[in-house]
């Protein structure tokens, strides 16, 4: 027990040191922030880190985080060459954070359309902290999880995106989180707030990537508020280094006729836990959860999703696919809740997993909790291996076994990727998956061969 206590205390000490430093540098904070910080710290102290006895953390062991001694980064220095290599080659509005610290040099914020505001959280707080104070923490309170409480205690940087009614942001918005290899592991507690007014539209890409040797801890909390008819496409591209630890929660609130589409593409990170929650509060609201995770080595990927149908005539659709190799461990927990009187609901959930190794493990738990009778809800989950008949069919056409297996695995992932609207991302992920296959499947080579053949 004393061990666990000291883990919690170590984080609280960091918090204390940091708060003292900040007070010295910037003077006192607005009272609401101070109060929330305090509530977060108190809640975290009371809860402690979750253990596997907690139902929500049954399959995920966070001792790797709890026992770590993480420092808070103080600068955003990052090699421009490495940054250029890691950055998504997409023309976009971009905010970059290095270990949680805003990096203006790696960000492009000009030419935003009128009605769109995209700023780092620190600046939003400086400019008009009261405007942020209202929505911040409304969806993800300190009660949500010990990590959310910890984030609230530490929060000071992140991103704020606000769209006025009818604003359409054509170019994608990239929130880039770079993980830096350093002497001591760093931690960051970014906070993202997205408020989209009626009929506004945007595409947000959250990209986690970093230097190969990095071993940092990111604890992200994201709140998304979609007003009537707002449309958001949200990518979470997880390509963090293999020693990175990542815990995040995304909480979405959807008003009438809004549409939220999520692509949770998980390739990197040593331990990744994502909670994705949507509150379907208005008739006609629609949520689409698409997910793909590929685990190898000793990676641990945990996806928890929850669709709360709080109003009649709301729709949720979920499709998660997992591929696990080596000793990777995957977790899928999807839940659909239909509140009383939320009639005419449609909620679909599908999860398919492919195990490539005998030491890989998947724990799946698709849940339905339904309190209304006029609903159409279903879920399905399968775990298995490639269809031997499909492999055979390809081999009869002169394709060798390894290529056949590679192609079929890619096709398995392809069912999610074909939904991806941004070609640059779909291609990147497809190539990454091809590169990870046990056969080291050379997709690029195959494409070239095919091109050469067609030229002949």
């Amino acid at each position, binding site marked *: 027990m004393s061990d666990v206590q000291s883990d919690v205390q170590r984080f609280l000490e960091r918090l204390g040191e940091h708060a003292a430093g900040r007070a010295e540098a910037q003077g006192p904070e607005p009272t609401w922030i101070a109060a929330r910080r305090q509530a977060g710290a108190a809640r975290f102290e009371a809860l402690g880190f979750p253990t596997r006895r907690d*139902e929500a953390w049954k*399959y995920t062991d966070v001792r790797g985080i709890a026992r770590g001694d993480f420092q808070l980064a103080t600068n955003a220095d990052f090699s421009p060459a490495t940054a250029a290599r890691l950055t998504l080659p997409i023309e976009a509005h971009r905010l970059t954070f290095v270990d949680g610290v805003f990096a203006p040099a790696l960000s492009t914020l000009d030419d935003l359309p009128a009605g769109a505001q995209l700023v780092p959280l620190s600046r939003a707080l400086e400019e008009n902290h009261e405007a942020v104070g209202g929505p911040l923490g409304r969806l993800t309170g300190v009660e949500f999880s010990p990590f959310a409480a910890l984030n609230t205690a530490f929060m000071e940087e992140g991103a704020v995106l606000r769209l006025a009614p009818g604003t359409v942001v054509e170019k994608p918005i990239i929130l880039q989180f770079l993980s830096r290899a350093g002497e001591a592991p760093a931690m960051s507690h970014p906070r993202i707030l997205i408020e989209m007014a009626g009929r506004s539209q945007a595409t947000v890409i959250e990209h986690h990537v970093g230097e190969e040797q990095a071993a940092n801890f990111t604890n992200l909390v994201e709140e998304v508020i979609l007003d009537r008819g707002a449309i958001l496409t949200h990518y979470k591209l997880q390509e963090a280094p293999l020693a990175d630890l990542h815990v995040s929660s995304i909480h979405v609130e959807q008003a009438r006729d809004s549409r939220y589409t999520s692509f949770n593409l998980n390739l990197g990170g040593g331990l990744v836990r994502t909670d994705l929650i949507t509150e379907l509060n208005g008739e006609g609201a629609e949520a689409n959860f698409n997910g793909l995770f590929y685990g190898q080595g000793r990676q641990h990927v945990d996806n928890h999703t929850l669709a709360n149908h709080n109003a009649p005539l709301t729709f949720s659709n979920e499709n998660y696919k997992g591929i696990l190799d080596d000793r990777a461990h995957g977790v899928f927990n999807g839940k659909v809740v239909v509140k*009383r*009187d939320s*009639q005419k609901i449609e909620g679909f959930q599908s999860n398919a*997993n492919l*195990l*490539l*190794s*005998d*030491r*890989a*493990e*998947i*724990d*799946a*738990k*698709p*849940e*339905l*909790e*339904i*309190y*209304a*009778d*006029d*609903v*159409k*809800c*279903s*879920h*399905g*989950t*399968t*775990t*298995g*291996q490639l269809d031997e008949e499909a492999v055979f069919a390809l081999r009869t056409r002169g394709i060798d076994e390894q290529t056949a297996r590679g192609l079929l695995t890619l096709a398995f992932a392809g069912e999610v990727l074909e939904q991806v609207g941004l070609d640059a991302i779909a291609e990147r992920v497809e190539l990454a998956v091809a590169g990870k296959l046990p056969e080291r499947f050379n997709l690029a080579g195959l494409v070239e061969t095919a091109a050469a053949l067609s030229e002949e």
Partner: protein
Amino acid sequence: MASQEMEQLVRREYKEGFVTDIESDTVPPGLDESTIAFISNKKGEPEWMLEWRLKAYHQWLKMTSPSWAHLDYPPIDYQAISYYSAPKREEDKPQSLDEVDPKLLETYEKLGIPLHERAALAGVAVDAVFDSVSVTTTFKEKLHEAGVIFCSISEAIRDYPELVKQYLGSVVPQGDNYFAALNSAVFTDGSFVFVPEGVTCPMELSTYFRINAANTGQFERTLIICESRAQVSYLEGCTAPQRDENQLHAAVVELVALEDAYIKYSTVQNWYPGDEDGKGGIYNFVTKRGDCRGDRSRISWTQVETGSAITWKYPSCVLRGKHSIGEFYSVAVTNGRQQADTGTKMIHIGEGTRSSIISKGISAGRSNQSYRGLVKVGPRAKGARNFTQCDSLLIGDTCGAHTFPYQEIGNSTATVEHEATTSKIGEDQLFYCQSRGISEEDAVSMIVNGFCKDVFQELPMEFAVEAEALLNVTLEGAVG
């Protein structure tokens, strides 16, 4: 919708709600070591059995009541329960049916138990359990000829201590869970079945449990062992009289199947579900587990759950032997304020093990029902296969249906599939039937029976008829 009919249904008196007035030899409420010693002494048990019980009791003291189930009930005061109750004349047990207390027989009559000639007609051997002491066992001789042992667990402890010692607690250990520990400490009766090597049990074995005597928890312990190539089909059916206070039932059922053995265990459960406010129903916390110990063994659970205020029950299979098979077929119906959290566990350990789960849940009134299941595939279970289907039917907009399936898969050659749907009875289905002159009520009954067909066809003939009737009674008028 015919809301009046629905009202009528909800107010329907419990058909089996009658109380037989027989003086019971009951210990005062409360649980401590002396209560356990009293029970053990009453049963004339050897010393090792008492020690076994006490060990369970000490483990139970250290445990806390599970809270993870999707159930809502007030905390149970274990000191307010009386742990032993037996029909008065225990010393001079009746030698034949004529000697049996006529009131008892009357009770059986009302329940329609085929004890007399009906037993012969139905071809069923009945080890009828009235409260805690088995009163009479029929067809013992015929079974004896075949070499099958079918008796109460108390008799088994006395007459076959070696068998009991070897198998009791080997599937569900004393400290397995809170309710199993409680049962291990205080169980008063239950059935014991032993089918020796190569024997196919000549008849279906059946026990009717019946809870009587207010405030008495019923703690049954059932142990069924099938040796190599042996087969048995066991039926369990339950009803209970109407009561105001909640009655606790914490049973444990252990099945052991050795090489090539096959055990089929069927249950129809229709205990008192409580009145329209959910008051007075039975609390049913049951641990049922089968161990497919031998290669190619097979265990099949079939259950029809219509009663009880609270049901907490997960008949499970541990698939240890190579190519062993586990099956679970369930129909659960909840109405009024009933709550059921039920499902199964399939633990695949051996190579080539297979399991299938078919669960049909029907919720009506203000009831809540959850399917909670676990499919676990261990690293050595090469080529393991599971198929799970759980469907829920909602009748009315005040009930709830929930699904919590867990899958833990650690083998790349395993194939595990799960699908679940939740829906209501389609207006078009009803219309179709009605347009062909079938009344709405009959149409609903047809559709619901069709929904449950996959499970009913697994039931033995006598039970299938009873189950369908039960289902109709439970849901009559629930949909207008």
